């Protein structure tokens, strides 16, 4: 490891915070300067992360950095550290790519808003804090970063404060998010009380001695639910829905693609490295249980939605549920499939939020019951949306299929090796959720891009190339990660999985060789080799998709030669003299009534399905009351439940 490499992580964080500072100073004067600084800061952070791939991912090094060179003294970490292992770098890469894409999208998307210097200052602070969170090697620093992240995200959610509900969504996020922050801080205080250190490596080394103490278990419960809040797991999901629906699309991408990943990262760090208790069955039930409930409840909630982005928000949490369920399995396959899905989730969900933003930018509406037929006006956005929708619904050969396929396998394998029915049940719920996701995206596709074009939106223009480029970046990444699961696994997932499952190395790199063993850390968890039961070849699926697309295109082109004229009917109504005389002769026999605007609205497409389950849906609708007290109550109940569960069973 060269000297310069060790400085890369801190430089990546600093460049974002410095960018925020510079934008605040100079960004008000000139747009070019503001955008330039933001572009350079986010691009620079991404470049630093990419440069670390070689040493960390391929050579398997762990980069440690003591701020101010306060190295440990006689086995006690006294300084603040940054430690980048493959797990941190994996999330660092996902985050910086998402941040970069969000930044270039915002240049055009936010153009008509005012006080953009404030926007980019907050945005760069948010980016810096999430990067700081995943690279930090210090527990309290993680808390500070979580707090910066939360309130910059809250401020950005309310950025368009004239938008209906923006203030409300932001307040709920802040108030109920404060419960999670309090839980994290209390957990940290309890850990410090026992161990008198805040360094992650040293905590991981000394914690096994206290593993049975009720205080340790209580701290675990508090930290778990605290990080869970940041990932918006089950009882906290209304916050995400409210925040997403009102935030600008570039910030929705950040909340869904980046902030939830911080929660996921926190949970992985917690159960695999810090407490190393992922092999305890009760912990598996806890983590997998929360993940499964989140994924099922949120996907059903999505059926009730009329707002494009609110619907996407529920799907976002549903997919995060997959990730959390997968990492809770405690196997190498489970963890690597969870990481894979986490990465894919950032890509396809980011893409979907950006297309939603493009629709909002072009039409000014996100209402699924009003929109329709936009594929004719915005064909390029429509293609991007379809790529995103196919990815999230798990259609091969896109990336959502690959990672969900691994998750099913991981859950099933866990169920068959442990003989536990619970994990088979999780696998079945995951499958059903995927089906419901597809159904839900058929609804969105039909009510936004297909069906009839509402007269209200007949002047809609396609969004500019500057907005489509960031979407294409994400779409291409979606396709590549779906087509090359082997490469992704080799260069990203396997190193990250090995790093997470090898706590001893993490501790030794930080505190000196032999430190972990001298403190009685048992060794790495289980077998880290990932073997897949099922086999599939994405390229064949790509060929199949290509053939089907060609067939559909040929039929469509041949079909359009026959002039049925039904589509032009409204035009014929307005200008009857332009109808060719030969056709006009037969008009009385064929035309009948003129076709009228009769789009099937988003809320009507699955009317039968919803009608049969209307008790469930109306119960869930009332349950998400929108009152901040109720959400706080769910949060407190969740904290209490996790604490009682941990103390009783862990």
């Amino acid at each position, binding site marked *: 490891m060269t000297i310069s490499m060790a400085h890369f992580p801190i430089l990546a964080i600093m460049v974002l915070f410095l960018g925020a500072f510079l934008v605040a100073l100079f960004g008000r004067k000139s747009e070019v300067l503001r955008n330039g600084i933001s572009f350079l800061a986010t691009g620079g952070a991404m470049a630093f992360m990419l440069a670390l791939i070689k040493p960390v991912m391929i050579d398997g090094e762990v980069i440690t950095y003591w701020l101010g060179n306060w190295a440990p003294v006689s086995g006690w970490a006294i300084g603040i550290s940054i430690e980048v292992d493959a797990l941190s770098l994996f999330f660092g890469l996902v985050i910086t790519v998402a941040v970069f894409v969000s930044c270039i999208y915002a240049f055009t998307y936010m153009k008509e808003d005012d006080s953009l210097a404030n926007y980019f200052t907050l945005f760069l602070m948010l980016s810096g804090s999430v990067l700081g969170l995943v690279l930090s090697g210090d527990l*309290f620093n993680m808390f*500070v970063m979580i*707090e910066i992240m*939360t*309130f910059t995200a*809250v*401020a950005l959610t*309310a950025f368009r*404060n004239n938008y*209906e*509900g923006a*203030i*409300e*969504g*932001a*307040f*709920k996020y*802040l*108030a109920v998010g*404060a*419960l999670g*922050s*309090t839980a994290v*801080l*209390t957990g*940290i*205080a309890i850990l*410090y*009380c026992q161990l*008198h250190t*805040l360094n992650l490596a040293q905590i991981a080394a000394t914690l096994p001695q206290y593993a049975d103490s009720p205080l340790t278990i209580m701290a675990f419960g508090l930290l778990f639910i605290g990080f869970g809040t940041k990932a918006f797991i089950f009882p906290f999901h209304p916050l995400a*829905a*409210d925040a997403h*629906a*009102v935030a600008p699309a570039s910030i929705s991408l950040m909340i869904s693609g980046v902030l939830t990943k911080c929660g996921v990262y926190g949970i992985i760090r917690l159960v695999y490295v810090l407490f190393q208790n992922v092999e305890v069955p009760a912990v598996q039930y806890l983590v997998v249980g929360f993940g499964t409930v989140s994924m099922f409840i949120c996907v059903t909630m999505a059926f*009730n*939605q009329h707002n494009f982005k*609110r619907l996407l928000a529920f799907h976002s949490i549903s997919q995060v549920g997959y990730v959390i369920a997968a990492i809770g399995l405690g196997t190498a396959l489970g963890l690597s499939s969870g990481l894979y899905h986490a990465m894919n989730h950032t890509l396809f969900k980011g893409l979907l939020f950006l297309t939603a933003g493009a629709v909002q930018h072009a039409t000014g509406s996100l209402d699924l019951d009003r929109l329709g037929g936009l594929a004719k006006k915005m064909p390029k956005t429509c293609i991007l949306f379809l790529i995103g929708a196919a990815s999230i619904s798990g259609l091969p050969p896109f990336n959502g299929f690959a990672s969900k396929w691994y998750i099913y396998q991981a859950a099933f394998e866990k169920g068959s090796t442990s003989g536990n029915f619970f994990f088979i049940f999780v696998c079945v719920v995951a499958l059903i959720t995927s089906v419901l996701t597809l159904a839900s995206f058929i609804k969105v596709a039909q009510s936004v891009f297909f069906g009839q074009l509402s007269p209200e939106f007949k002047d809609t223009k396609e969004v500019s190339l500057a907005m489509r480029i960031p979407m294409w970046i994400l779409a291409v990444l979606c396709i590549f990660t779906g087509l090359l699961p082997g490469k992704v696994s080799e260069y990203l997932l396997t190193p990250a999985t090995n790093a997470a499952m090898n706590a001893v190395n993490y501790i030794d790199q930080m505190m000196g060789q032999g430190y972990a063993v001298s403190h009685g850390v048992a060794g790495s968890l289980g077998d880290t080799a990932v073997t897949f039961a099922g086999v599939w070849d994405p390229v064949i699926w790509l060929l199949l998709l290509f053939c089907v697309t060609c067939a559909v295109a040929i039929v469509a082109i041949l079909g359009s030669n026959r002039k049925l004229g039904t589509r032009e009917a409204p035009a014929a109504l307005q200008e009857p003299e332009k109808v060719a005389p030969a056709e006009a002769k037969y008009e009385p026999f064929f035309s009948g009534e003129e076709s009228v605007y009769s789009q099937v609205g988003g809320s009507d497409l699955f009317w039968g399905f919803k009608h049969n389950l209307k008790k469930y849906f109306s119960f869930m*609708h009332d349950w*998400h*009351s*929108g*009152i*901040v*007290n109720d959400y*706080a*109550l769910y949060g*407190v109940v969740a904290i209490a439940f996790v604490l009682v569960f941990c103390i009783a069973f862990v």
Partner: protein
Amino acid sequence: MLQVNYIGAFCLIVLGMYCMIAKKNLMKTCIGMGMMDYGVNLLIVSVGFHDGGTAPIFVISELSRASFFVDPVPQALTLTSIVIGACTTAMALSLVIMAKKQYGTINTEQIRRLNG
């Protein structure tokens, strides 16, 4: 003596949570958030406190096995946490002001346009 601190911290956190759950006023929600913060701050300071310990200000030569002082790290943590708490409260209060302007009320039961 320390038990009192821990019980006090616990009571403050629980009262804060109760306040957030039961009070239908956005201002009181903010107060609840603040009380949770203070509870945790009290907890952290108590963790580092040693009865009879001196202030942790020494030069290296003075430091010996016999020196008995309170743990400085929790105090630093508390300071950070207080600053964060102040920021959160300021942000929450500014949102309450905006909510009052937009909705004409600060009753939580009427501020629920985003639901379902």
